[in-house]
Each structure stands twice: as structure tokens, then as C-alpha cells.
């Protein structure tokens, strides 16, 4: 009876149309012609991509520069009072070497001119040497007090810096 039989036994697969082999052959031909055989797509992990490292490095660099900029812009008026004299001296010694050489060269140059001018002024009462130049040479005496000009010239020569190469504009402050 029906209770003893599985329900599937009361179902019969329907007759179906015949699919010719040529149908599949044509499909294969179209696929092979239109889709040449390719290598399967390779999945490259993110950390193995060159662009990943480049963009990461760029991001870090930008972040670093931005943080520095923000820190600098946040201290436009540094509190010099909080710095000790030795810290300031160390900073100047470390960072102002080029300017220092130039200052020395100007000093020597101006000093020479001033001496020459003073001699001329002694000879001629109406001296043509500007007073301010003399004043400068005097004021610089304070700066380079106790330093021999020969030592300065020797130092500058050692640094391969020629005093005569300085332009007039460099000489006059």
C-alpha cells in the first residue's frame, strides 16, 4: 500500500528533450575562442604589495612633518628666559658656524678700513670716512675683545674663506 512506499516512488522523472553533443561543443568553442586561457588570479596579501609600503611610509612621513609643524607653530614665541646661558651658547655654537665666519671676516675687513680711515682722518681734518663706520668698529671691539686679528685671519684661511671675496654690501651692516 501507499503507506509502505516512499512518496518519491510516486514521482517519475519527466521525459526530457535530448541535448545534442554539438550544443556543448559549440559552447566550448565559443568559450575557448572568446576567453583565452588565463592563469588563475593570484591573491597578493596586502603586506606583500609594494604600493602598501610606499603609501604607509608616505603617511608616516606626512604625519611626522605635520606633528613637527604643529609643535613649532604652537611655540612661535619661545620662552628664552627658561633657557640657560649654556644652552643658548651651545645652540649658537652648533648652528651659527657659517654666520660666525662671515661675521669674523666682516670684522677684519671693517677694522682694516677703519684703521686706514682713521689714519687718513688724522692727516686730513675733513675726513671722508663715515662716523658710523668708526662707531661700528668700536662696537665690534667689544665683541672680539681679546682676540687677535691674526688669529681671526688664520682661522678664516683655515676655513678657506677669503676676506677680499666679500662684497661691499656684506661688509657694511
Amino acid at each position: 500500500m501507499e503507506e509502505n512506499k516512499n512518496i518519491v516512488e510516486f514521482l517519475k522523472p519527466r521525459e526530457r528533450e535530448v541535448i545534442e553533443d554539438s550544443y556543448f561543443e559549440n559552447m566550448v568553442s565559443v568559450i575557448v575562442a572568446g576567453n583565452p586561457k588565463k592563469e588563475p588570479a593570484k591573491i597578493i596579501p596586502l603586506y606583500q604589495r609594494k604600493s602598501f609600503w610606499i603609501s604607509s611610509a608616505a603617511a608616516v612621513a606626512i604625519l611626522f612633518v605635520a606633528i613637527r609643524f604643529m609643535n613649532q607653530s604652537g611655540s612661535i614665541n619661545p620662552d628664552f628666559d627658561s633657557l640657560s646661558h649654556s644652552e643658548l651658547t651651545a645652540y649658537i655654537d652648533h648652528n651659527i658656524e657659517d654666520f660666525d665666519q662671515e661675521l669674523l671676516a666682516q670684522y677684519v675687513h671693517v677694522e682694516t678700513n677703519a684703521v686706514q680711515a682713521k689714519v687718513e682722518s688724522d692727516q686730513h681734518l675733513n675726513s671722508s670716512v663715515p662716523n658710523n663706520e668708526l662707531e661700528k668698529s668700536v662696537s665690534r671691539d667689544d665683541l672680539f675683545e681679546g682676540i687677535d686679528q691674526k688669529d681671526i685671519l688664520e682661522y678664516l684661511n683655515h676655513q678657506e674663506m677669503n676676506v677680499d671675496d666679500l662684497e661691499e654690501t656684506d661688509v657694511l651692516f
Partner: protein
Amino acid sequence: MTQHPDDNEILQLFHQGASFAERAFNLIAKKYGKQLYWQIRRITKNHEQTNDILQNVFVKVWLNLSGFNATSSLYTWMYRIARNETMTFLEKEKRNSSVDVDDSVVEIIAGHAALDTHTADEISELLMKAIDQLPEKQAQVFQLKYFEDLKYSEISQQLGTSEGALKASYFHAVQKIQEFIINALNH
């Protein structure tokens, strides 16, 4: 029945490349094309959609066969591709337009009271839903045995499973299908 070359022979031929690969691809299409076609058609119930889906399946097979690692049988691998492609296709089609279905997959044999009041289309729909609920192996065995009318020895060769295991799978599949259909008809 046509004698087809063994899957391993086909794969060896494919790996020789060039025209050999194309020949191997042709052999695969001849050997499994009809089974895949009807596997899809039983779900779509429409030749045009089946044609589109099958073409997608074969494109994937052609492009990826070199990476086939034989952890499953070749048929199982293609069965999965076909199933996924069918589901994806139908999901898209559901949003676009409805298509005409052309036929049911089964006829009803008189004699079962629960079936007498339903049409073949309704029962076909339930049968396909029931198959869809089965574990993959049982679904494969049921379709190959019930619809394709293959012998257990042939299915065994195709799936790489012993005949005893196949008989057990088929038995369980039929039991589950009956349970599903009866439950559906009673609600």
C-alpha cells in the same frame, strides 16, 4: 552509453596545454555537460537561463581548471560551480524580471492520497526545495541516480565514493525528501 575517458586522463591532457587543453575541455563538456545542464535546468526550468548559466560555469571551469587541486572529484567541483552560478544568476534575475517556466521536473503516479490533489508543478517545486535542503553528497547522489539514472558503479567512479556509501546516501536522501514533501503538503 558512451564511454568517457577517466578524469585523471582528461586532467593530464589538459595540463599538456595548448590544443591538448582545448581537447581536454571538450571531453569534460561531453562527459559532464548534460548532467550540469539538467542540474541547472531543474532549478531554472528554462532553457535560455540554463544556457547562460552553463556558459558561465564552463568559462569558470576553463579559466580555473589549471588550479583544480583534486581535493574533490572533478564532477563535485563543477557541481559546486554550477550551483553557485545558478543561485547567483537567479538572485539577479529575481530583481530584474520574471521569466516563463516551461515544465515540471516530475510526473505524479496515481496512488498516493497526499499527491492526488496537487499538480506536477507544485510537487516539482517541493521536490527541488527538498533536494536543496540535502547535504551536498546526498543531493548529488540523488540527482545522479534519480534523474540521470546512473548506476551506482558509475556514480562511484564519478564521485570517488564507494557504492555502499552511495546507497546509504541515496536512502537517506529519499527519506528526507519524503519527510520534507509530506510536511509541506500538511501545512
